[in-house]
């Protein structure tokens, strides 16, 4: 092993270069400082339905009566006149995972309406997308499955707040594999010992919605004991809505709580469903908004307009989503 | 006394050899690389089996192809020092020498006494607690030999025992081997390619060429010419 240096001045030169490198690396890797407490604080303040990961997941859920956020009626515009600009533009749209099935058609129709534009959907649980955005990920448009997450992002200044509008709604439903291995005939059967249920984690919007629906059912029809038994039958808390549907369609669980749209869009004969009465159900409202960081506000706005247009809304309806009331 | 008749088909030629060695006699096996010398030792030890043949040691049959007698390696009581001496590097010298006796569940006092004795004879007593991995080639060789002798074998076999040694060690190891063998009165087979070694310690020499013996006799009568042996 040769001596790395035996000349004084080469030492000085090395130290200087090392400092330069360290400075460069430190500068590039240090993100804009965000105190760790902020996300936690805002999350718990605006999400009364989200208990800490711990306590309620194993026991009785906290009794919740969440009033759906008041929504202004989405203006249903006539077919928009596309502002055609000759440049190629790809939009990055962060989209709640429950829109996975409908996203392909939406993308095609948007490109048809606005030639030269393409959309790339980043599909994941809304909570995951929110974390990505908060840690610097780039998005032009954000479609959220949860009002509270939307409000958090608005409060943190990620949205152009004036563009945030309700997009569509969805109810929760219970799906079963077509063969119904658990012999579930009614919602009461969900509490049967030995039943295997899959649900989304409570940080996922459909998870919170499921919790609420079950709590409402316990209050109105069944008992708190029923609620307890249902939760003790949960074998897995998934991190996105499609993951719940997968476990059910694979037949590995007896039942799962997902959105109605997932059931409607499933291929015939793969799933059965048990409806949750509207009175007890939780109507999830999706919102859409343009991000402040977008490179092209006009194109992003075009996409939002498209989603809110009759064409976009009809496509959503075809896949089982409900219109905003 | 060793009496063996071995026949085995090797890759390029058949090995066909008759061997006899008397107690206290050092029989030297010589030949080119690949002539089959090490194979002979491996067969005698039981690590390899001949196709046909018989091996008798002190009247006891170790292998008999006709009547299907086969004594396993562990029970043959043959001291075998392999090529490239294999002193166990992670054990101390005394643990090395004691290894065979321990395997036979001999009482530990007797083991200690024997270990002392053999270490003394091979002049490694001062290294008793040193890990064998730290020793020089010559020292490792002595350890291996002491270890083989310590089990009280009926036959000693050494494969190229002097190759890795310098002149000084070679002389003392050769002397030690000769003394031990004559003291114990057991036959001893030594494989070597060095003519000088054969002359030093051998009582008889067998020259092996392509699996068969092409010359047998006293070391002093060994024909110099016509033998292509690496020096």
């Amino acid at each position: 092993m040769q001596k790395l240096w035996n000349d004084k001045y080469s030492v000085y030169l090395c130290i200087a270069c090392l400092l330069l490198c360290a400075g460069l690396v430190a500068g590039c890797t240090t993100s804009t400082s965000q105190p760790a407490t902020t996300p936690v604080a805002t999350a718990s303040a605006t999400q009364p339905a989200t208990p800490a990961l711990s306590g309620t997941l194993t026991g009785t859920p906290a009794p919740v009566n969440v009033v759906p956020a008041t929504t202004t009626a989405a203006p249903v515009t006539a077919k928009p006149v596309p502002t055609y600009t000759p440049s190629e533009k790809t939009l990055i749209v962060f989209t709640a995972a429950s829109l996975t099935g409908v996203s392909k058609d939406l993308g095609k129709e948007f490109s048809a309406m606005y030639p030269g534009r393409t959309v790339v959907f980043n599909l994941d649980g809304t909570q995951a997308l929110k974390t990505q955005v908060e840690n610097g990920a780039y998005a032009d448009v954000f479609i959220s499955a949860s009002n509270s997450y939307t409000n958090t992002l608005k409060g943190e200044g990620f949205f152009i707040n004036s563009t945030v509008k309700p997009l569509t709604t969805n109810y929760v439903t219970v799906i079963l594999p077509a063969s119904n291995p658990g012999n579930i005939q009614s919602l009461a059967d969900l509490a049967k010992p030995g039943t295997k249920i899959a649900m989304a984690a409570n940080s996922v919007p459909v998870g919170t919605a499921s919790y609420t629906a079950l709590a409402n059912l316990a209050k109105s029809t069944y008992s708190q004991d029923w609620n307890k038994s249902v939760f003790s039958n949960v074998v897995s808390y998934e991190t996105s809505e499609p993951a719940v549907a997968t476990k059910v369609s694979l037949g590995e669980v007896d039942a799962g709580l997902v959105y109605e749209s997932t059931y409607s869009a499933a291929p015939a004969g793969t799933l059965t469903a048990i409806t949750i009465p509207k009175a007890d159900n939780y109507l999830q409202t999706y919102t859409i908004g343009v991000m402040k960081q977008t490179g092209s506000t006009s194109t992003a706005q075009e996409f939002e307009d498209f989603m809110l247009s009759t064409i976009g809304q009809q496509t959503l309806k075809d896949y089982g989503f409900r219109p905003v009331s | 006394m060793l009496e063996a008749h071995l026949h085995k088909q090797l890759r390029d030629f058949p090995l066909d050899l008759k061997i006899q060695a008397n107690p206290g006699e050092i029989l030297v096996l010589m030949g080119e690389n690949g002539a089959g010398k090490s194979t002979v030792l491996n067969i005698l030890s039981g690590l390899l089996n001949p196709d046909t043949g018989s091996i008798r040691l002190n009247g006891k049959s170790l292998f008999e192809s006709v009547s299907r007698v086969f004594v396993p390696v562990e029970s043959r009581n043959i001291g075998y020092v392999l090529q490239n001496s294999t002193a166990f590097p992670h054990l101390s010298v005394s643990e090395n020498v004691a290894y065979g006796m321990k395997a036979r569940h001999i009482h530990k006092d007797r083991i200690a006494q024997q270990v002392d004795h053999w270490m003394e004879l091979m002049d490694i007593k001062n290294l008793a607690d040193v890990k064998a991995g730290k020793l020089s080639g010559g020292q490792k060789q002595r350890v291996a030999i002491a270890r083989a002798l310590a089990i009280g074998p009926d036959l000693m076999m050494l494969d190229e025992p002097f190759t890795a040694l310098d002149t000084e060690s070679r002389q003392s190891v050769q002397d030690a081997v000769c003394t031990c063998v004559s003291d114990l009165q057991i036959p001893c087979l030594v494989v070597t390619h060095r003519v000088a070694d054969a002359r030093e310690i051998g009582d008889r020499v067998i020259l092996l060429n392509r699996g068969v013996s092409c010359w047998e006799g006293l070391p002093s009568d060994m024909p110099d010419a016509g033998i292509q042996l690496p020096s």
Partner: protein
Amino acid sequence: MTFSFLEPDNYWRTLTTVGAIVLIASVTLYLALPVVALFFRTTPELFISSLCDPAVTSALWLSLSTSVISLGIVILVGTPFAYVHSRNTYPGKMIVDTLIDLPLVLPPAVAGMALLVLYGRVGLVGRYLDMFGITLAFTTLAVIMAQIFVASPFYLRQAKSLFEQLDPSYEKTARTLGASPLRIFMTITLPLTAGGLVSGAVMTFGRALGEFGATIMFAGNLPGVTQTMPLSVYVGMQGNFNIGLTISILLVIISFTIMLAVRFLAGREGRHA
């Protein structure tokens, strides 16, 4: 003051020296900085207080216990397997050799999917197990199975290679000295390969501890039952950032401790030839 480093010979030497230092520094920083950043993102008070959170303690206990059990099984079954495999030729040996490496290149999610499709309730094998009332998917056992599947190659390859490289002369000599195969294995083979086996075991443990994709697919995500630390980090990152951060830091500390312990043990054992 002579700037001797500007002279032709010294110029090149200085350049290569600087290059070497820059190279070492960049690699070190690239690996170290992200880990360090974890610690800077939280405060000591926040960290300590979240240690008591049931989400953290249950994930910690679950991860450590399952990883230890997985490692134990891999060592107990894998060591004799690797030994037999390396010392013998048998028909299909090459296929087995390749299969040992398979989990290394298979994406963990695929591994999880495969385990689910085989052992799940409606799986190829699982359906028969289900008839006897045996459930595998979504249990802690599934966590262990997933860990063993993805982590065992680290140990098996290492053990296999060690046994292959071990000079067979040692074992042959031991045989001639009268030692039984078991004695040979315990007194000769194992001690001479122990160092390498330990490092293989460490890698296996680390991989088992960090397993995520196969676990979430096959075992699911249930706190206290199947929510291991990596799963907890992932979920926490989305819902409760602070918990995710705390568990990440815990994992770093555990990994470091293991590495240091192994270094210490290896140093004490001394070097064998």
